């Protein structure tokens, strides 16, 4: 297997007396979907925050494409090829689908803000930016919705838009925090199909509660309980792991 694109080495996050994430190590590889599951409060979202740079880790190291990026702010990680979506839909509600994607795509060729050239050129005509936005639009299947204001989209399509925005930044590593949350059956199906497509060419981390989707998509599974990883392996290994059954899957079948 090739070198890991994103690697967490012993990440911990402490909030006062609460150890939200405790010594978590994991590696994300290209063309591979790594799912993180666990009951509510297990620290999955906090782990995503640590990996994306939204929240600084208390301990541990983060490596991106062979470079130590511990402590980098998330805009810098984003420019370095790491894209993420949020548990709570996070798009520009006031902008159209296309303008959302253009702003995302523009970040890859943005000049420094203090460069006067970035004050005087026309943002809407940059060919490279338009191409990136167009690719993301097609990939996420949003061509029909191109001109609709994001606030007027259904919840499921907003989530699709958020992933499309991340794709417009052309990341190599994708962190998706519960992309299926609150979706209807048809929307879920469309999203699972999209995630399946994205597995190729990306190293992906998927935090998700929908077990059908997780077992359909995941190449590797990590199970967290109370901030700690209790098991990690292929879906088959996880299904038969006695600790996991006791701590997590057991709850559902009980």
């Amino acid at each position, binding site marked *: 297997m090739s070198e890991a694109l994103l690697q967490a080495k012993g990440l911990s996050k402490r909030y006062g007396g609460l150890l939200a994430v405790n010594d978590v190590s994991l590696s994300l590889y290209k063309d591979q979907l790594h799912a993180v599951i666990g009951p509510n409060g297990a620290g999955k979202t906090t782990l995503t925050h640590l990996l*994306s740079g*939204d929240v600084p880790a208390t301990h541990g190291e983060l490596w991106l494409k062979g470079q130590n990026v511990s402590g980098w*702010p*998330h*805009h*810098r990680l*984003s*420019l370095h090829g790491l894209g*993420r979506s*949020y548990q709570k839909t*996070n*798009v*520009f*509600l*006031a*902008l159209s689908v296309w*303008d959302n994607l*253009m*702003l*995302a795509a*523009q*970040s*890859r060729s*943005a*000049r*420094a*803000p*203090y460069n006067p050239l*970035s*004050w*005087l*050129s*026309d*943002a*809407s005509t*940059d060919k490279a930016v338009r191409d990136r936005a167009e690719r993301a639009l097609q990939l996420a299947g949003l061509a029909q919705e191109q001109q609709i*204001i994001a*606030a007027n989209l259904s919840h499921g399509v907003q989530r699709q838009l958020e992933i499309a*925005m991340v794709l417009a*930044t052309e990341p190599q590593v994708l962190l998706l925090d519960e992309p299926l949350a609150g979706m209807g059956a048809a929307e879920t199906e469309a999203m699972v199909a999209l995630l399946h497509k994205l597995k190729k060419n990306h190293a992906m981390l998927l935090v998700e509660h929908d077990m059908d989707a997780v077992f359909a998509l995941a190449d590797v599974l990590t199970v967290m309980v109370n901030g700690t990883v209790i098991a990690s392996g292929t879906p088959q290994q996880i299904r038969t792991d006695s600790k996991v059954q006791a701590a997590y899957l057991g709850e559902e079948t009980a």
Partner: protein
Amino acid sequence: MSTPQAHLETLPRSVQVFLFVGLIALLAFPFAQQDFYTQTVTRMMILAIFAMSLDLLQGITGLVSLGHAAYFGLAGYVVAYLSPQDAGANWLIALPLAMLASALAALVIGFFVVRTHGIYFIMVTMAFSQMMYFLFFDNKALGGSDGVYINVRPGGLGLDLENKWMLYYFTLACMLITYAFLRRLLWSPFGRTLNGIRLNEHRTRALGYASFSYKLTAFTLAGALAGLAGFLWAAQTGYVNPDLMGFHMSAHAIMMVILGGMGNVAGALIGAFGFEIFLDVFKDLPKIGNFDTAKHWQLWMGSLIVLVVIVAPQGLMGLLRNKKADHE
């Protein structure tokens, strides 16, 4: 919710026509009027530049600065200090230096204030401008509470601002350049990013934009443009005092932007003219019996702003809009 529709970034046809007619009127104005009104309109144009510079922060980036007058006043002081006793300062030196001084002050102050948000940003910008105000107010060497006189207005290379007509057309040119520049900036990659920061700063950062640098650049640029207005103000009045940096000056600029409509530059321009026209009307109201209505102009102005905010959240500019066009 603030939407681009609410901000009318794309100017409706009716507003474009209004602005064009306004431009023709401004070009012809000095030919049709006495000197007094020409000076009044010059002042309005200067304040329009000031209001537009604030709109870059308030309407476009979502940073409500209650201390923007600090950069306006500072530029005026620079002109005063650069003016010799018996001659005018060379405008080719005084204008860039005045704008540079304002930009530098905005850069340094901005470095501390743009990391704050919402109400804290409002308070901190106000605190810094009050510090500047008292720095000039309390120091005799800087002019003290009396301010500084400019005996001869700036001139040099093709320009003599002692000439009221030249001052008028020079101010008009500065206003047009500022307007064109900011409208262009609004649609530039920089402007789109500032718009993103106003709508959702966290998302903008997550997309890879260093929002701090963007906000600091906007703050500095707005300071420089306020400096342009301050230069012209000093050149027109021939006098600067600490009030130019004061709280009232900053608050008036905010009201101008709200009155006209935020976030599209044109609204700030219209708002500045509207504010000054209403001000003149209110200060000219008749005495009714024992009640001097003109003395209470602030009451009428306050009521007007409240009324505009309630019935026309997009400001005077929103009222110009053709409602039918919205449903197309």
